[in-house]
């Protein structure tokens, strides 16, 4: 009985598939396009709605989808594996914060945020969120002013590009709160309390000069759940299509039905350009200078035997896993591995003192560099860094 139903369903899908088949599909075989297999594609789902991404779908017809056979028996069954999640389990993992789901109650001030930032964030994100060493900048100034740069296009190579930072670009502050709480600090995430997360978010608003409910987020500002709900980011309407609200999905669907919205080109295969297709103004453009070629490992297609690698040095593994984050490149304020002048200065303090500093923390460096290394391991890695030669 079920099988009969299934067949009927399949047939109706096939019918709708045929209905929504794009014109170019039928043209494809007529024009002698290279491939014209038995693949059945449809520009709409079985419910008649256009495919959400502007592409096609492959309904199961006669037990196949495109060139794949389908186990229709398995498809027709319902499997009830696993168990129901408990309320506590859901609460433990349901940590997202969105435009409709506020962070938990709590509060934190800009001042507290700056303190935490100086302790746990500055080594990667730089002073006042200025970035460095390949880590994202968190601010380049006033979010409202920088938002105006989003129309910048570097047609002139010397022109300024658009500024895409938290204050100027991100549509929702909820994203920042959520990410700080679940994903930061990078090497030790999920260690910041709710209050600390409010404080850091307040600091982010402060350095981006965002106003909340008409009020400047100055050094004394205290952010809490009620105020958080009132944050409107400068670029809240800077995105298309509108994905919020009950029409969100349908807005997306409609958007991708128009190739000009996203730079797509639709053409019937028979009508595609085969001669004089380039704009007459198009000219050969080459890589300027040497381009980017600092590939690791260096590019090679030679078939030879690999160079024998030297045995790892004591402390190297730990350094690479936990210390290179800050000591691997300049801009973090930390002595850079292999920079003799910087390390000579460190070594002048004496080995005991250097180790003690590493264990207790110094300037931007947290105790033990934020690791749980033993004293012995700390000694290994400090020695590795002190003695490293390029």
């Amino acid at each position, binding site marked *: 009985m079920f099988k009969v139903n299934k067949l009927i369903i399949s047939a109706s899908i096939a019918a709708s598939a045929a209905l929504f088949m*794009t014109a*170019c*599909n039928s043209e494809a075989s007529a024009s002698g396009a*290279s491939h014209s297999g038995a693949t059945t594609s449809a520009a709409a*789902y079985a419910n008649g709605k256009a495919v*959400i*991404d*502007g592409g*096609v779908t492959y309904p199961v017809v006669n037990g196949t989808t*495109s*060139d794949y056979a389908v*186990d229709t028996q398995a*498809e027709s069954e319902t*499997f009830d*594996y696993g168990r*129901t*999640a408990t309320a506590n389990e859901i609460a433990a*993992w349901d940590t*997202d914060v*969105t435009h*409709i789901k506020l962070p938990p109650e709590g509060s934190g001030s800009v001042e507290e945020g700056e303190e935490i930032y100086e302790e746990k964030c500055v080594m990667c994100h730089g002073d006042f969120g200025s970035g460095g060493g390949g880590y*994202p900048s968190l601010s380049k100034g006033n979010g409202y002013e920088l938002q105006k740069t*989003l*129309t910048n*296009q570097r*047609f002139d190579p010397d022109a300024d590009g*658009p500024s895409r930072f938290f204050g100027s*670009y991100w549509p929702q502050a909820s*994203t920042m709160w*959520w990410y700080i709480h679940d994903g930061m600090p990078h090497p030790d*995430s999920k260690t910041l309390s709710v209050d600390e997360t409010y404080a850091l978010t307040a600091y982010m608003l402060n350095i981006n000069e965002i106003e909340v409910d008409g009020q400047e987020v100055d050094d004394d500002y205290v952010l809490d759940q009620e105020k958080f709900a009132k944050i409107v980011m400068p670029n809240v309407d800077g*995105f*298309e299509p509108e994905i*919020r609200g009950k029409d969100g*999905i349908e807005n997306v669907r409609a958007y991708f039905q128009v190739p000009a919205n*996203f*730079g*797509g*080109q*639709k053409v019937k*295969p028979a009508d*595609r350009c*085969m*001669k004089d*297709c*380039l*704009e007459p*103004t*198009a*000219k*050969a*453009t080459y*890589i300027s200078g040497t381009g*980017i070629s*600092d*590939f690791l*490992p260096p*590019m090679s*297609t030679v078939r030879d*035997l690999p160079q024998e690698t030297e045995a790892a040095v004591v402390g190297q593994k730990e350094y690479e896993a936990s210390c290179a984050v800050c000591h691997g490149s300049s801009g973090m304020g930390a002595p850079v591995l292999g920079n003799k002048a910087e390390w000579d200065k460190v070594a002048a303090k004496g080995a005991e003192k250097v180790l003690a500093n590493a264990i207790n923390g110094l300037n931007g460096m947290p105790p033990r560099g934020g690791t749980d290394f033993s004293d012995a391991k700390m000694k290994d890695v400090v020695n590795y860094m002190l003695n490293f030669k390029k």
Partner: protein
Amino acid sequence: MSNKEIKNSQTEVEASTVETELSDRRAFFKKAALSVGALAGTSLLANEHAASGEDDPFIMHHVKWGQKWGDPVTKNRYGVPSKYEHNVTRRNTKLLASGNFRASIAVTPIHESMGIITPNGLFFSRSHGGVAHVDPNEYRLMIHGLVEKPLVLTLDQLKKYPSVTRTHFIECPANGGQEWRGPQFNSLQFAKGFMSCAEWTGVYLKDILKDLGVKPEAKWILAEGSDNSEMGRTIPMDKVMDDAMIVWGQNGEALRPEQGYPVRILLPGWEGNLCVKWLKRIKLSNEPFFAKEETSKYTALKPSGKAIQHFYANEVNSTVTSPSPEIPLKDVKVGDLVEIEGLAWSGMGTITGVDISFDGGNNYVKANLKGLVLPKCWTRWSYTYKYEGKKIILASRAMDDAGYIQPTIDQETLITGIEAVYHRNGIETWEVAPDGTVTHMQMRSTLKRDDTGKVVIDKEAK
């Protein structure tokens, strides 16, 4: 013979052939024979046949692996490639080194790629907080939100669902994204290698949801990873109910850690970033989530100053893979037949055809698809070209069954501008010099804004 000895003897052979004209076989064999004569004294016994300078010493002499025991079968219980293939690896660059190579990418050597499957060890690796190493015994997947029955599955329970196996590419939407304003990489691996293709095994997410009582108001899901960055993205229910898969298998074995071991979500054809790895949580909702990677990144800024927020499918695309800047044409003379080979792919459907141009994309002829032609999958194509000994500019242009064709760089940038970062699929070009050297370049016009702010071609530009 130790590695070192082999290397030494090999160096001699190479040194002796450096200045050799490749096309001059006679000279080559003479010189090679000389150096192998020296080798014979150390380890290779000449066989008993008479040899003249015209004969290939690698035929005329016993090869070293032909006379000694090979490895026992007990060695390398998990096999590894030949040592001679050590240069076929993922590569990275400091430009893309964020987070000390934790929030970073290592890309696939597609110039060495064969067929449509990327070996698991070469599949491009992108993470937002480093590659997590998940204990499969402690692994849990939770599905909750707008469902009657919120679910928890262990890995074993997940694998009980009837499995489905499909071959799909995964592409980072920033593939080619460094070259919106002009070519930067004289390399196929870096210009187009932010993608790979594999055969995936898992279960359709819709088949798990069947038993959970999905509420009608559910429009979106959040897919969230368990790594330190909790990488998460919003996915529309339409995709979930179409072909979204929860996968644990990759080319016949468990996912590699770099691909989300033990479980990732696979959205065929869509941005690699949406295919969340180390998957821990799926939440059904009536509103999108504004996760970090769909706001701060993975949004395509247009000249209007507005950005496309949800940009799902990687559009129709193609590239010439042979020749490439890495592997130029070698040992060819006028009149020789040369196979120009490439890849085509579309996240919106199935490749229906590829055209090839020898003048940078001004005029085209039809190329040939070959092998399996599957939806949202790499498709191989080729064209047999009679080498003319003059400069050519190779360009390929693919079409898909959704009706899309690759735009020229001008067509694309006139709409999206040059600051979009993501989803660049304009026609790409290799210039092949008469000596076979390949250089990455682009055919494009200079753009400007007109008085109304519209992006137009700058006709006065030199």
